[in-house]
């Protein structure tokens, strides 16, 4: 058995306050390179299993956009050597479980939650589709037709989807990071089953995957099951994807676009920030709770104030794609108020730069941040997603899972002075891309 080769590593002891729902985490690597993360929670007889692949739209080549998302659909519905189409969903549902998948820009996650006594089934199903996805021409055509239909429906009905894609192209500026995970219709029409197979063979391999389990399970038996179902899958090679870091001129940049399905005028603001893993990244995370997260956050108060509301809608936050981070703010407002909204954002940022945050405000931001982390780790499903994402984020940044789990402790120690320094460096007009959206 491969257990002998796998060295179990317990994560560093964490303070009970920081991640109370994320205790009992251990991880190890199988001989074929598959990373396994286990998190025991004995509360209810429920267990979640997630497999995260470091594969997303940023790994697509020009002319082949949409392949990552198409593959996600095939993984969900097509079946594999021993599993017929839809059987994966059907088996999980029959056990009373739920499942889903998420195709992000830099990774794709597959996850299910089932009663604990069905853990072997979930591992068996996941290993079968990791090993032998059924990429028959029929399955491929069906998935492609579904994807094209989804694309058409969303482009004609989802307000601001087209303008968001333009905004991403401007903000990220290069093909890999800037193109939409939905893909281009012309590219999808030209994709072949061989394109999908090549992507699957390159990225859906143990060397490029992490398996996370959270909930009530027997550790020894679970490790035996993992070895049984996953260890004989050929490891493949971890794909080498070195992205060139673009350099940006620090000058204000703005553009205007027409959006055929926009329901009102809008403006996107985007700041390019420090990468994940850096001390500034943590400050940026906390700053999000000062600016946007929560009804009493500064920008919400300023733009959506009951007494002097100037925006219809405000949203945004930190967005991370592989090693890059941006801060997005999206505002929908009436035509005369768009400029006022943009000015209000910069005015609030200027105020923050001029005066240190009060103890009360920074304490509230930290409290809200804690609440947010607890909510993001509330269920076993949440925890496997959290673990898979944290694993890839830290790996990209050159860190470890321990670093990811200790992130909260570090964020809770941030001081007002550190926040001001980050604001002055990153949250300035010279580092901001602005896209105005007009109704067509």
């Amino acid at each position: 058995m491969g257990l002998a080769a796998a060295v179990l590593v317990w994560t560093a002891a964490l303070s009970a306050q920081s991640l109370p729902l994320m205790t009992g985490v251990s991880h190890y690597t199988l001989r074929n390179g598959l990373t396994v993360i286990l998190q025991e929670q004995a509360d209810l007889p429920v267990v979640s299993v997630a497999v995260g692949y470091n594969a997303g739209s940023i790994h697509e080549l020009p002319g082949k956009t949409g392949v990552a998302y198409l593959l996600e659909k095939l993984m969900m519905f097509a079946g594999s050597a021993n599993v017929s189409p839809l059987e994966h969903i059907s088996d999980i549902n029959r056990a009373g479980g739920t499942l889903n998948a998420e195709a992000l820009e830099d990774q794709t996650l597959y996850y299910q939650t089932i009663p604990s006594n069905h853990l072997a089934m979930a591992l068996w199903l996941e290993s079968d589709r990791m090993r032998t996805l059924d990429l028959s021409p029929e399955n491929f055509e069906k998935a492609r037709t579904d994807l094209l239909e989804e694309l058409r429906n969303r482009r004609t009905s989802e307000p601001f989807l087209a303008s968001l894609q333009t905004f991403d192209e401007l903000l990220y500026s290069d093909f890999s990071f800037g193109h939409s995970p939905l893909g281009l219709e012309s590219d999808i029409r030209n994709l072949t089953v061989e394109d999908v197979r090549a992507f699957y063979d390159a990225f859906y391999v143990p060397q490029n995957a992490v398996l996370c389990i959270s909930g009530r399970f027997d550790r020894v038996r679970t490790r035996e099951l993992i070895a049984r179902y996953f260890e004989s899958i050929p490891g493949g090679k971890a794909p080498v994807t070195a992205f060139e870091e673009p350099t940006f001129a620090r000058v204000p940049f703005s553009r205007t676009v027409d959006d055929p399905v926009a329901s009102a005028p809008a403006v996107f603001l985007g700041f390019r920030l420090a990468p994940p893993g850096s001390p500034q990244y943590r400050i940026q995370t906390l700053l999000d709770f000062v600016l946007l997260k929560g009804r009493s956050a500064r920008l919400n108060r300023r733009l959506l104030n009951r007494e002097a509301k100037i925006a219809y809608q405000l949203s945004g936050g930190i967005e991370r794609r592989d090693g890059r981070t941006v801060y997005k703010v999206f505002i929908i407002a009436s035509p005369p108020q768009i400029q006022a909204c943009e000015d209000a954002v910069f005015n609030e940022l200027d105020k923050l730069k001029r005066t240190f945050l009060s103890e009360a405000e920074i304490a509230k931001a930290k409290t809200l941040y804690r609440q947010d982390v607890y909510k993001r780790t509330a269920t076993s499903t949440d925890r496997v997603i959290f673990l898979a994402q944290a694993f890839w984020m830290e790996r990209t940044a050159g860190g470890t899972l321990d670093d990811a789990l200790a992130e909260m402790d570090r964020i809770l120690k941030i001081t007002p002075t550190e926040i001001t320094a980050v604001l002055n460096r990153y949250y300035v007009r010279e580092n901001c891309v602005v896209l105005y959206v007009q109704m067509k």
Partner: protein
Amino acid sequence: MKRSLFRAAVGCGAAVCFLAAMAGGQERFRQRIPPPDPRPELRLPRLETVTLTNGLPITVVYREGAPMTSLHLIFYAGEQASPDKTPGLATLVSGIFGQGTQLHSAADMEERIESIGGSMSVSADQDVILFAFHFLEEYLDEALDLAAEMILQPRIGDREVKIVQSLVSAEMAAQERNPVFTAHRILGRLLFEGHPYEKFAFNRGAIRNWTSRDLQEFWDRNIRPNNAQVVLTGMVNINAASRKISHALNLWRPRDFTPVPPPPPRPPERTRICFIDLPQAGQCTICAGTVLPPLVPGERFALLTLGQLLGGSINSRLFLNLRESKGYAYETRSRPEFYRAGGAFSLEAIVRPEVVAASVREIFSEIRLLTREAASSTEIEESKFTLLGGFPLQLDRFDAYAGYVANLRAAGEGEDLWSRFSENVLDVDSGRVLQAAQKYLSQPFIVVIAGPREWCREELAQFEEVDVFDVRGQLVETIRK
């Protein structure tokens, strides 16, 4: 020599075994889905209850390790308690909780709530107004003070009423573009026509009638400790909880009244097909339902099994028929809903516009089949299996105990759906499911179709009679074959 022959024989045998095991180029265990282990025991904490001297009942559910505490307050004053001339008043009351208090503005209250890592939501349904408040576990005292201030010193004025009116109106206008919302609202109205539950399906027109005086009267009459219930979950025990709640709400005075439960609803007199034109919708949403009168013991679990069997998952009859066999539908579902007085059994299918009539025929054929033939014991066991497996999943979130138990209390339920859930499901057999189907699914159904009329004109012409409604629920015309 003998020994080496023996070794060779063993070697050949092993090779044969290995080849057999690798039939098809894979290990044998890959060919068959592994069976489940024995069902694990589900041990839920006890529902501990106590009633304060002002008549406020408290239920506490201890949850070890929960980093957040959840406080739910149930006021038995849902839309059924709204006066007939002002339907929707319970919804207005739920909106008033977010408008500040006599001591603090709405913005100040938001600030105080977020300072304890809190979030709050208040909603009204047929039976209750549900106030749900989640906060970091170390702030129980502060949270109770905030809740007490909102309950005891609400800010009720014309200005606040106007704000809530515009918020509810805007939300409803947005929802009316959603075919599922629109179809269910009309279904609810037609199913409970003449019953107090009909008021839950109020429309935007009703919002204009609300006044701060109506609101104050409703509040004074209904927001009382002896017409409410607290459910608290987290790392707190019943003694500490009752002491703290009593301290925070000791000024809350009961009212001398006997709550009158709503009368049992009556099933529809005839099956009706209704239509709502939603030109922008790409598909047609079919919602169909009938009324459930108050149930006799055991029927609830037979109906839950029936809902699962008919449309609970992708292994259910509606999905297999409408999607897998006929290719008509994108999604299907069915389920019973239980209120304090009876409930409803409803189903839903999202189908292609050109097959609406055929889909309705198939739905009724599935319903008829359930009332005529007992489902096989395999099918019943599979449905029960799904219900049993899904139950702990519903409770997995650290604040889910509170939501689940609050819903039980709202519907007047207790341990049957908590600690005895599994035993009750296991007691169901095909005979009881058939009996429930014959008793309730043989009743007339109301069918509401929401979709683009332009695309399904010929389909609608296949029905004997179709009542056409606008999105607000006004009857526009009746088309006959």
